[in-house]
């Protein structure tokens, strides 16, 4: 077996376009999942008991079942009740549903890491409620949450490869196409793997840098 990377590498604009779509799905899913996670974390803390149990059930269910089967359920199950989703939408909803549960866990833990004594100290110093949130709680929470959140973003990015199964032509889908056209599947997937590594490494570096500048969060890049 000899590897021929030439025909695959010739198609680099096609593959990079796929990588951009992968990243776009991940950004969209993450952006939609963040408020869901925040709302769920808030409900877990302050909601009425019934609501708390519902949110807890959602988190447990979503984190203990495969994302792939969740998307299958949306994509093939919902048409039976008259809701037809495009592959892109189904994947996006599935990824958001899944990420929302993990982000809820992360944000809950982040808020729980604020100690009662910190808030009491701020109260003693005469901080108003808003000032406490602005100067005590938020800096602490952001510093604590930033590393796990950026890790989760990488997990979401890797999870978007499932979109190829539903016919979305992102990076995995496009390398599959190239492999089928050229009969060079090993090379096509190999190049895709390298692009994934490069893509997530760049994302981690950008996140680590902005985390250090904005939230004073210390992160390891590798």
């Amino acid at each position, binding site marked *: 077996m000899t590897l021929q990377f030439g025909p695959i590498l010739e198609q680099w604009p096609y593959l990079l376009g796929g990588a951009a779509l992968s990243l776009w799905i991940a950004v969209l899913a993450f952006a939609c999942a963040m408020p869901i996670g925040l709302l769920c974390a808030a409900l877990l803390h302050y909601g009425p008991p019934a609501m708390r149990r519902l949110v807890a059930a959602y988190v447990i269910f979503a984190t203990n079942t495969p994302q792939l089967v969740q998307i299958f359920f949306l994509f093939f199950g919902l048409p039976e009740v008259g809701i037809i989703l495009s592959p892109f939408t189904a994947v996006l909803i599935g990824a958001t549903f899944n990420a929302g549960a993990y982000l809820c866990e992360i944000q809950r833990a982040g808020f729980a890491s604020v100690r009662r004594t910190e808030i009491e100290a701020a109260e003693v110093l005469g901080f108003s409620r808003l000032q406490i949130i602005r100067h005590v709680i938020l800096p602490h929470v952001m510093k604590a949450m930033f590393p796990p959140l950026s890790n989760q973003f990488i997990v979401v990015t890797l999870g978007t490869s499932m979109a190829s199964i539903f016919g979305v032509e992102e990076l995995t889908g496009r390398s599959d196409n190239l492999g089928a056209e050229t009969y060079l599947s090993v090379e096509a997937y190999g190049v*895709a*793997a390298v692009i994934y590594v490069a893509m997530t490494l760049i994302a981690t570096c950008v996140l680590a840098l902005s985390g250090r500048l904005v939230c004073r969060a210390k992160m390891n890049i*590798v």
Partner: protein
Amino acid sequence: MIRAAALFSYYDLTLLLEGFLTTFALSLIGCLGGFVLGFAAAILRTTRSRVMAPVRAALFVYAMFLRRVPFLVTLMLVFYATQSLHANLPTFAVASISICLIAAAYLGEITRGGLESVHANQWQGARALNFSHWQTLRYVIVPQAWRVILPPTFGFLVMVIKDTALASQIGVMELTAAGKVLGNKGVPAVLVYGAILMLYFSMSYPLARLGKHVERRLAAARNH
């Protein structure tokens, strides 16, 4: 109602059961293989000799790469690589190999983090007592690292169970693939995939609970 009852025909139930057992076997192989390989990789990375430097570098690159490639891509890569090498492996073996590869990368990192969490003083103390490298690991470092390693390990093992769903893509007849077969037979998709989701849940939730339990026990032991 009649269509719902169709799911519970004898053939369908055996298909689901076989899928369940295949998923269980894949998960078990992935968990055990990944744990052993990952532990070995982490131990090898604690070595300090110059002879082992290339091995350490290779393990570093391995762990960094595999954790940044989607499991689906790893799976396809192993699948096509074994095919083009004309190694006619059954798809179950291909899926097992891929899962072990990726689990070794993640669990290796978790274990390494645990080993590094033990304070350097412990290494020095053991050295002063004339412990060899392996004795230090065996009697000093690993017993202390254990409580840092175990909680995230359980978290990752749940991931392994969920990742096995992707093995359906290369034709392993596990739970997800069984669901697809039933769906194509005309059983309502809501019912099929609802049942499949519940079956996955029944596998991973006990493990997640066990992990939480172990975590609480370890945290209680640490606070003494």
